[in-house]
């Protein structure tokens, strides 16, 4: 019924949404972007972030030497594709990949040259990272160790967020991470006390790891200017990481000063691994190499939960009971945000969704849709046989609990009372109605309530009127 329909439309929307990084890039100056486009690896990663139609347009134009009249390219577009095509052209022109798309279509020269170079190879700028020579002293790092490291780092951050204010004292992430969390508004400290998670932070916890990662990195980019770091250097390093190979060691030598400074930050986030802080080599983790893909950025089978994270671990019944096959403290803590937990076994947590637990979550700023989408994405394979996935009763009840909270709506304004006569009252009220600012009125008491915007007008009107009488 309605619940299921709403879900499907949500899915469509989330698929069509452009990548979170694109609006940020679009807001950058042409100069910055052109400098970024000088690196083949950056062009390749950017290309991957584009929506599919945009990608096809870029590819169509990539191997052409001369500009194509816009009408010629437009002739290939079908009628139903027309709208998306126009959006794609606008999108590309904002990124300065396609200057002046209205008359002639031709790619930005720098972008074209770099992307061509990325596709066919060649050049000498080493933008895909220099592999470090074989290390005789140490064995090369294994992928399992890298994965474990990335998970440990990432979960430390999330666990710190989720358990702040609960009295527990989990391991603290590094000051750099704490600062980033504070700046991004995910956590805040009230009156100099310890950091507390904010409502944005609660919402953050329910996102997929991929979204979480980009949200933090985006904040990192926003902070770049304050820290007097070169945005182009940061972006190109992130893009370079995303094209690197998991399990290989790369040399620090070819990096710029800014990029060397970034190593420390990225190590804290779990994107790269280094044997020692002063090491001359580094390895990207899965978090880094999947930046531009849709693959899960965190390895499956994080704990003994038998690969639970990827496949989902939650079983939800129509009687609001919830079974979570996990022993991961982070997942338990996240569930605790909106579930009343009852029992805990070595690999199983049992709880139920109650009005109180959901209202607690809603008070923290989490929305009903976020709860439902979290349950959907982490549903156990057994649950996936159900249609709809989440029992309709539970889904609708969660939404109803949310609506419950919205019974009261506050609006600022002014109460106008003590009118001298009924005629006065009606005269002013009529004027206020014309302005469409009346929120409430009571003729018996000769008073009405007007919104904030209308106040100066009404006041002026009353003053003119009384002034005229005097």
């Amino acid at each position, binding site marked *: 019924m309605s619940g299921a329909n709403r879900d499907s439309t949500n899915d469509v929307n989330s698929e069509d949404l452009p990548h979170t990084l694109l609006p940020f890039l679009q807001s950058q100056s042409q100069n910055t972007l052109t400098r970024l486009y000088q690196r083949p690896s950056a062009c390749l990663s950017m290309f991957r972030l584009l929506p599919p139609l945009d990608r096809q347009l870029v590819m169509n134009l990539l*191997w052409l030497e001369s500009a194509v009249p816009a009408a010629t390219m437009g002739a290939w577009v079908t009628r139903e594709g027309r709208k*998306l095509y126009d959006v794609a052209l606008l999108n590309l022109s904002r990124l300065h990949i396609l200057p002046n798309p209205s008359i002639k279509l031709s790619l930005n020269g720098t972008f074209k040259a770099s992307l061509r170079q990325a*596709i066919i*190879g060649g050049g000498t700028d080493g933008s895909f990272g220099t592999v470090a020579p074989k290390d005789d002293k140490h064995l090369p790092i294994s992928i399992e160790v890298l994965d474990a490291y990335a998970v440990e780092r990432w979960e430390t951050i999330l666990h710190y967020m989720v358990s702040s204010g609960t009295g527990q004292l989990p391991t603290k992430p590094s000051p750099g991470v704490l600062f980033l969390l504070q700046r991004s508004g995910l956590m805040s400290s009230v009156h100099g006390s310890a950091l507390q998670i904010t409502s944005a932070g609660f919402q953050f916890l329910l996102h997929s790891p991929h979204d979480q990662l980009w949200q933090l990195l985006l904040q990192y980019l926003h902070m770049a200017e304050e820290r007097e770091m070169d945005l182009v250097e940061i972006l190109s390093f992130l893009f370079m990481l995303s094209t690197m190979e998991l399990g290989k060691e790369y040399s620090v030598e070819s990096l710029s000063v800014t990029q060397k400074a970034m190593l420390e930050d990225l190590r804290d986030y779990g994107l790269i691994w280094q044997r020692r802080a002063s090491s001359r080599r580094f390895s990207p983790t899965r978090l880094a190499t999947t930046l531009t893909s849709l693959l899960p950025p965190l390895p499956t089978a994080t704990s003994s939960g038998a690969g639970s994270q990827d496949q989902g671990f939650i079983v939800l019944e129509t009687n609001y009971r919830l079974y979570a096959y996990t022993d991961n403290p982070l997942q338990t803590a996240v569930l605790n945000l909106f579930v009343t937990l009852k029992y805990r076994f070595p690999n199983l947590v049992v709880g139920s969704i109650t009005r109180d637990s959901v209202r607690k979550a809603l008070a923290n700023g989490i929305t009903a849709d976020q709860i439902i989408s979290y349950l959907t994405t982490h549903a156990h394979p057994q649950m996936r046989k159900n249609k709809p996935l989440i029992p309709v009763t539970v889904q609708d009840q969660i939404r109803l609990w949310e609506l419950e909270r919205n019974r009261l709506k506050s609006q600022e304004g002014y109460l106008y009372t003590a009118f001298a006569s009924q005629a006065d009252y009606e005269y002013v009220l009529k004027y206020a109605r014309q302005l469409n600012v009346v929120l409430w009125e009571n003729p018996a008491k000769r008073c009405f309530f007007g919104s904030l915007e209308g106040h100066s007008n009404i006041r002026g009107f009353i003053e003119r009127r009384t002034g005229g009488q005097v």
Partner: protein
Amino acid sequence: MDKSSHISVVLDLSPSQWHLSSLPHNPYPLSFKSFLSQVLAFLNLHIASKHENTLAVFGAFPGKSVMLYSSSNPASDSSDSGNPNIYRPFEIVDSRVVTRIEEELELIDDKEEEAPIGLVGALTKALCYINRITHPTTSTQSTIVEDPAILPDPRILILSVSPDLSTSYIPIMNSIFSAQKLKVIIDVCKVYGPNTVFLEQAAHLTGGSYVYLERRDALLQHLVMSHLPSPALRKLMAVPTQEKIDFRAACFCHKNIIDVGFVCSVCLSIFCAPVPVCSTCRTKFPIKTLQRLNASRAPALRPVNGAAKTSAPSTPSLPSTPR
């Protein structure tokens, strides 16, 4: 719409045809070397479009067909070349495809007569490969419930240079029908030589695009514009398809492509002349029909060995289902 896709590329690697193609008297001579470099750029673009995109490359050599590369089983040699100027997956694909082709070409002995091209074998292998990746057996994949939305939509691209091989009519038609069943699109790019009837039909029947390459120096541009877009994208940006398709079939008896044929009323086998007994299903036809059919045929069409016998009446304008 933005999901990963799979392309199986079938390369027609007939040495004699490539030699003919590179001769300078052609309007646009295309050497094998420049063909390969453009195809490699195309393969790279496919991998570049999306991290999850997968690829398989099959080579059709004279008399045999070989899998040159597949992303599920890339090169085993993890040489630490570490060229900092190229994206690693591209390097793997390119070097792997080139070395495998070299190896295979070395193996071809210099006989005067070139064996017929193994295009059908390559096509069948591509279909088998796609079948395997789209329907993972439950035993190997443990309990993972495959969401149909995350399975790649598979396509086959045939880059053909050899002319039609009329003996391969039945296997090609069978491949087309299994492709239809697997919902696989077959794209065809005719790089050299005359249009091939069978591949035209393959593209038409599976909803793929058929391109006859006239400007052969623009191979890459044609590949990118007409064969790279995924099926979802083709709804938004059109790709070229054939307007006129040659639907002629080949007879089962002499493997000739025929304009008018005779079809067995039981098993739908096609013959170029009326026959008394169907060679496929052993059905015997009444002698009267046979005489009537033979009488109605023009004397010029009468086969030399034409013993007056019967066959079922037919007008095969459409290819039938060989079984």
